[in-house]
C-alpha cells in the first residue's frame, strides 16, 4: 500500500541551520568540538568521559526514540506523538561534528515509531509503528536523503503494535523479526520475508514472552529473543544445525538472567578470534522517562547454546540500560543507558573469570558473579557531563564515532572510545 510522504521540506533544515547552526558551523576540529548548543555542565569532571563532538542543530519538540546510521546519514524515530500530529522520523547529515537536520518524514496512524533500521545493503529503511495500529513501513533508500515509501505491512497479527523490527539476512534472504505487543491476545513474534520488499510475506508467528517480547538479535542463522520474564530464547532459523528456518524455528536453548525484564540482546562475534562466546542482555526495569531508569547488562556465555548461563553483569546505580551497539573489531560494547548517558565497555577476552574481589551480587540475587565495573571493563562514559539532562534510547557505533539518540535532546555525536 503506497502512501505519500508528507515532508517538512528541505527548507526546514536550512531554517534550523540558520537558527542554531551558526555557532556550530565551521568548527569541526576533533580537539575542540563545538557544543555551544549543548554545553557541558559547569565544573563537570568525569575522568573517562567520552568526547562530545556535537549535538543536532535542531532539538525536536517531539520525543526521540531509536537511531540508525549509515554512511553520513542518520535516521531518528520519535515516541509518544500526539495523535493529531502523527509520527515523524528525522533525517540528519552526520558528516560533520554537528548533526544537521535535512528533512523529516511523517507517518500517519502511529503514535510511536519505536524502531528504525537500515538493511545491511543500505537499500531499505524499515520503521516499526506501535500502539494501534502496529505495522512496519519499508522505504527505499535509492536516494537515502529522501526515503520513498515502498509498502506498509500490517495484518491482524501486528495490529496491537510492533515494538521492534529487527532486520537480518538468513541464508541470503532478508527478513524482518517483529516483536508485537500484547493487545487482544498475548505478545508474539512475527517473522516476515522481505526478499521482495514491495510485498512482504509473513512466514511465521508465535505467541511468546512473559508478558512481552521486546527485541530480537539475528546473526548467522541464529535468532535470539528477549522474552522479558521468560529470559532469552535461542532459535535455530537456518544456522544452528538443527534444521530450523525462519518459517519453522527450532529452539536451541534458554536462559533466565537475573531479575528477568529481558529487553534487548547483542551476540558478540569477535572478528579477531572468531569467538562468539558471549551475548549481552539488556534488562529494562521500570523507568520514568526523562527522570529515572533501572536495569543492568547481563553477560551470558552461549558457547553451549543448549545450556547458556549468566557469568557477569554490569550495573550503574540509579540508571538503566537500553539498546546496544558494538565496535566488534575493538571489542567495545556501547550501551544506551537512559539517564546514565552512554557506557562503553571492554568486552574482549574472558568475562566469566575474575577474582572474588571482582565479583558482586546482582540486586535481589544471592550468588556473586563477575562485575564488569570491578574488572575495570568500563572504558568510558558519555553524556553524563552535559548541562541539560539526557535520556539516551539508542546508540550506534560507526567509523570511529558513536551516535546517540536522546529522548530529551535529539541526536548526539561522540568520539568512540579507545582502549
Amino acid at each position, binding site marked *: 500500500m503506497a502512501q505519500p510522504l508528507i515532508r517538512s521540506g528541505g527548507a526546514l533544515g536550512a531554517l534550523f541551520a540558520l537558527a542554531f547552526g551558526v555557532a556550530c558551523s565551521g568548527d569541526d576540529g576533533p580537539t575542540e568540538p563545538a557544543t555551544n548548543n549543548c554545553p557541558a555542565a559547569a565544573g563537570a569532571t568525569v575522568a573517562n568521559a567520552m568526547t562530545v563532538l556535537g549535538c543536532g542543530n535542531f532539538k525536536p519538540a517531539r*520525543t526521540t526514540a531509536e537511531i540508525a546510521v549509515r554512511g553520513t546519514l542518520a535516521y531518528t524515530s520519535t*515516541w*509518544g506523538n*500526539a*495523535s*493529531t500530529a502523527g509520527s515523524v522520523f528525522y533525517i540528519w547529515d552526520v558528516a560533520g561534528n554537528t548533526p544537521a537536520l535535512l528533512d523529516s518524514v511523517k507517518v500517519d*496512524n502511529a*503514535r*510511536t515509531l519505536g524502531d528504525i533500521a537500515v538493511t545491511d545493503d543500505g537499500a531499505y529503511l524499515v520503521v516499526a509503528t*506501535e*500502539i*494501534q495500529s502496529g505495522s512496519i513501513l519499508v522505504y527505499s533508500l535509492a536516494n537515502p536523503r529522501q526515503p520513498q515509501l515502498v509498502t506498509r505491512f500490517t495484518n491482524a497479527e501486528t495490529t496491537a*503494535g510492533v*515494538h521492534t523490527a529487527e532486520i537480518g539476512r538468513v541464508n541470503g534472504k532478508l527478513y524482518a523479526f517483529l516483536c508485537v*505487543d*500484547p*493487545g487482544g491476545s498475548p505478545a508474539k513474534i512475527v517473522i516476515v520475508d522481505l526478499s521482495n520488499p514491495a510485498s512482504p510475506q509473513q512466514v511465521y508467528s508465535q505467541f511468546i514472552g*512473559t*508478558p*512481552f517480547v*521486546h527485541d530480537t538479535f539475528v546473526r548467522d542463522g541464529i535468532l535470539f529473543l528477549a522474552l*522479558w*520474564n521468560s529470559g532469552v530464547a535461542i532459535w535455530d532459523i537456518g544456522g544452528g544445525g538443527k534444521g530450523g528456518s525462519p518459517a519453522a524455528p527450532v529452539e536451541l536453548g534458554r536462559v533466565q538472567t537475573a*531479575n*528477568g*525484564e529481558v529487553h534487548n540482546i547483542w551476540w558478540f562475534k569477535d572478528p579477531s578470534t572468531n569467538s562468539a562466546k558471549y551475548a549481552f542482555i539488556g534488562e*529494562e*526495569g*521500570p*523507568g*520514568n*522517562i*526523562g*527522570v*529515572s531508569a*533501572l536495569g543492568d547488562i547481563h553477560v551470558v556465555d552461549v558457547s553451549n547454546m543448549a545450556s547458556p548461563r549468566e557469568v557477569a553483569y554490569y550495573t550503574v546505580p540509579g540508571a538503566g540500560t537500553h539498546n546496544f551497539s558494538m565496535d566488534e573489531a575493538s571489542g567495545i560494547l556501547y550501551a544506551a543507558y537512559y539517564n546514565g548517558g552512554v557506557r562503553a565497555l571492554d568486552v574482549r577476552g574472558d568475562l566469566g573469570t575474575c577474582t572474588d574481589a571482582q565479583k558482586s551480587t546482582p*540486586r*535481589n540475587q544471592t550468588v556473586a558473579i563477575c562485575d564488569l565495573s570491578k574488572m575495570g571493563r568500563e572504558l568510558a562514559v558519555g553524556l553524563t557531563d552535559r548541562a541539560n*539532562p539526557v*535520556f539516551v534510547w539508542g546508540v550506534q557505533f560507526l567509523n570511529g564515532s558513536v551516535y546517540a539518540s536522546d*529522548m*530529551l535532546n535529539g541526536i548526539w555525536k561522540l568520539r568512540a572510545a579507545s582502549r
Partner: protein
Amino acid sequence: MAQAIPVVTHAANTAAGADLTEGYVSQAAVMGRGDLLSGHLRLEATLNGEGLTMARGELSTGAFGEGYVDRRHPHTYLHEIVASGLGAIGPLTYSVSAGRGFAAFGTDDPMVRPFEKYPINHHLSQILERPMVTGAIRFGPAIVDASTFGGDEPASPRSSPSMRRLGDSWSLRATALPLPLVELQGSYARVASPEQREGFGLDQRKRDVSARLISADGGRYLLAEWARTVDRDHGRNEDVFAYESALVEGSLTLRGVSLALRVEQTERPEEERLTDPFRVPRPIVDLAISGITQWRTATVALMLPSPIFGPIRGYPFIEIERTTARARDARSVFDAESFYRSSSQWMFTAGVRLRVGSRHARMGRYGVAVPAGPAIRALGTTDSDASSHHHH
C-alpha cells in the same frame, strides 16, 4: 435501591487541550442488601450499568485508572456481590465476608460521597471489584478488618477476575470510633500486579489514613484523607514510583439545600496514550511511565431538594471544578501545560440524582466493619433513607 445520574459536563482544556461537552448517565446502579438468619447472614449486591451508559468513560479531567485517563472508567457490571456471616462472642462481634467487592482498605467509595465527579485519588484510596475474603472484628470503639484478594484490576465492564490470582494480595484496616460519629481509619495493602492480569506488572504497596465526621442527621459531613501508593518491581525487589494524595471534603445541608466543597492534591502516573487521548494501553506494553503529574483540584457543588415526590426522587445539582496540573519532576517528557494547552482546567457539570428506594449510607465495608451512622444528606437523603447497620 436503584439510582442513575443523567449529567452534562463541559470540560475546558481537557486531554489534548480539547474543550468538550458531553452527556451520559453516570453511576447507573441497582443495589440490594438483605439480612437472613436473624441477621447472621447478610447478602449485598450492586449491579452497575455504566458499561452501557458511558462506555467511553465519563469526562473527568485528572481521573485515571483501568486504561482510562482524564475520563473515569465505567465500573464492572457485577460491581459487588458479597455474602457475610456475622456473630458475637460476648462484647466482641465478628464477621466473615466473601465474594466480589471492596478489599478492606481506605475510605468509602465516592458513589456515597457528596460529589458526582470522583476524586482523582480513587485508585489510591479504594480497592474494589476484587474477588476477596474479608474478616472483621469489632470490640467497643475499635474495628479491624483484613482482606485477602486477587490483585488484578478489571480491564473492562465485562471483566471477570482471574481466580488464579485470588489470594495474591492482602489488606488490613484499623478503624477507631473515639466519639459518636467520629471515625479514624488507617489502612495498609499489598496489591500484586494490578495493571497486568497475568501477574507480571508492578506491585503496589498502599497506605491510607483518614478522619471522618458526620452529624447525627447527616447534614454536616467532613472527611480528611491522606494516601500513598508505591509501585514496586518485584523482580528487582525495589520501589520505583510513588504517588501521594491529600484530600479534604465536606458538605452542609440546610433546608434541603446542600453545599459541598472538596480540595485535593493527588499525583498520578502518565503513560503513553493511544490514538484516543483519553486511553492508555491495556494490557500494558512495558513498565515505563512518561511522568508523574501533581494535580490540585477545588470542587464546589450545590444540590437542591427533589422537586418531585413519590417513589422516584430527583435531586438537581451543579458542580464546578478547577484543576491545575504540573509535572512533579521538570525532566519528565510529559508536559502537562503543553498537553492541556493551559496551566489550569475547568469542568462544569449539571445533572440530577435519580433514585428509587433508600440508599446505603456507606460503601466499601462489610459485616461488622460498617460503623453506625447516617447517610450524607448532601446526596439527597430522604427521611426514609437507611442508616448503616449498628453493631454493638
